[in-house]
């Protein structure tokens, strides 16, 4: 059913810290690796060793140069499904293949119903949809729905593969519908933002902006160094210090 649930019990999603992401691609391949054998298996790679290589990936990391009057910064930017509250990718789906789960807000594709019309990918402003040309259906990030509740994994491993892998701890997971959850607190503390808020899709995932060149940047309130005033200059200072 492509009508959206009026309410979801939870709003599961990711919080991505752009201040910390070094662009190492760990989340990218961890996602690929888990999901190519997971719920939407396979994540087909066409021409994997050739000149027209094109694979299905649920998570991709861009890099940008962000320049303001305060300075410039290189920003690594992971991009995946934001599991929006009002995802048009779901409502445009003619077959009911795309849907938003009422229980946890995860946006999924039921592959058996998908006709591969690609309209959902047109409706998604974020480029979160990935067409598997070999299978002929649309695929996308499942928020690792086959991990986060998986009884066959140890409790501690029940997080999305990208979050588990991220070496810098730039990725966080939880219920963004619960204002007291750790992720919600993190978003509040760090001024997390929505992507393209003007689209009105109300993405669940949040991005924490880089802190360099802002008031939030780490800084050291160091007074300028003054030459030692002791007689004899630096060597005199050494002697005095040692004789104290």
């Amino acid at each position, binding site marked *: 059913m*492509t*009508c*959206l649930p009026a309410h979801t019990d939870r709003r599961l999603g990711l919080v991505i810290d*752009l201040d910390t992401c070094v662009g190492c691609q760990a989340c990218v391949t961890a996602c690929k690796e888990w999901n190519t054998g997971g719920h939407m298996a396979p994540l087909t790679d066409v021409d994997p060793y050739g000149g*027209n*290589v*094109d*694979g*299905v*990936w649920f998570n*991709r*990391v*861009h*890099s*940008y*140069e*962000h*320049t*303001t*009057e305060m300075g410039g910064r290189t*920003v690594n*930017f992971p*991009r995946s499904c934001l599991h929006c509250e009002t995802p*048009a990718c*779901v*409502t*445009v*789906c*003619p*077959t*009911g*293949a795309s849907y938003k789960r009422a229980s946890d807000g995860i946006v999924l594709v039921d592959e058996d*119903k*998908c*006709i*591969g*019309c*690609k*309209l959902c*990918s*047109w*409706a*998604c*402003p*974020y*480029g979160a949809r990935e*067409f*598997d040309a070999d299978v*002929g259906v649309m695929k996308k990030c499942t928020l690792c729905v086959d991990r986060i509740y998986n009884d066959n994994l140890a409790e501690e491993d029940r997080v999305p593969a990208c979050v588990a892998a991220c070496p810098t701890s730039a990725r966080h997971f939880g219920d963004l519908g619960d204002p007291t959850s750790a992720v919600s607190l993190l978003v509040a503390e760090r001024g997390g933002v*929505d*992507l*393209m*808020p*003007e*689209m*009105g*899709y109300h993405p669940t995932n949040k*991005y924490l*902006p*880089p802190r360099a060149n802002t008031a939030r940047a780490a800084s050291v309130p160091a007074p300028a160094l003054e030459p030692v005033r002791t007689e004899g200059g630096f060597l005199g200072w050494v002697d005095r210090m040692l004789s104290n």
Partner: protein
Amino acid sequence: MHPAFSVVFFTTATGAGYGLLALLGVLGGVGAILADFWLGLISMGLALGLIAAGLLSSTGHLGRPERAWRAFSQWRSSWLSREGVASVVTFVPAGLFGIGWVLLGRTDGWVVIAGLLAAVGAVVTVCTTGMIYASLKPIAQWHSRYTLPGYLIFSAMTGSVLLNALLQGFAVGSNILLAVCLLLSLLGWGWKLATWRHNDRLEIPTTANTATGLAGGTVRSLEWPHTEENYLLKEMGFRIARKHTAKLRRITQLLAFALPVLLLAIVFALPWPVAAVLSVLAAAAQFAGMLVERWLFFAEAKHTVALYYGR
């Protein structure tokens, strides 16, 4: 947006087909067009043929066409589903009308109702098609008040020009219809120019800044996630050079509007069969012009995902 031929042809052909069907349903049903078997057969055949060919072509765009039947299920939320339902539903009154009007030669009773219903179905279907595009927020050139009227105008325009060609062909042309064709072509021309003007001046609030959440200053793409093109870029990262656009816009105007208007204007003063030949030429030129227009409709449409790739 990538101008896939299957979709370009689909929207152009069904637009013309539904326009023609609507005119036939109304004018045939009320007896404004006499129920001539061959005229009826060819005109209904052309209308339904364009619709069927368009719909068939659109399935060429599908990854799993054998499941296309599933697309009728989500009419409550999806314009594409509604289009599917409307297009199929329209076949019922259209078929009945065809039987009544063409085979039975009737222009009364249930045939009138079927004709009117077919016309309503055609208009609804064209509306749903227009809404598919008009509802897509990520594509500002489509998500505009120009899109839906455009689909309706172009459907009426191409349908009427086709109908005129058919009637002229059978030497039963009507100056009123000719006038309607001329007016619709001029309206279409004007609408297209207005649309382009609107799109060229669009101030899209979505930028690389809002796309990345990086406030202020400039955000420039440094490296793509993957160095080679992927589905998103092939489907939605299509780029067309400004020079190329200008040329295609001129071709569109010439073929879809200027030439048909000129030819149709001349037809007023000409007898059959020259009038018929020019009318058919006008319709053919317009159809070709509308294919170019529709190609541009896609090619000039910029999806927000391109912002992530610095396009």
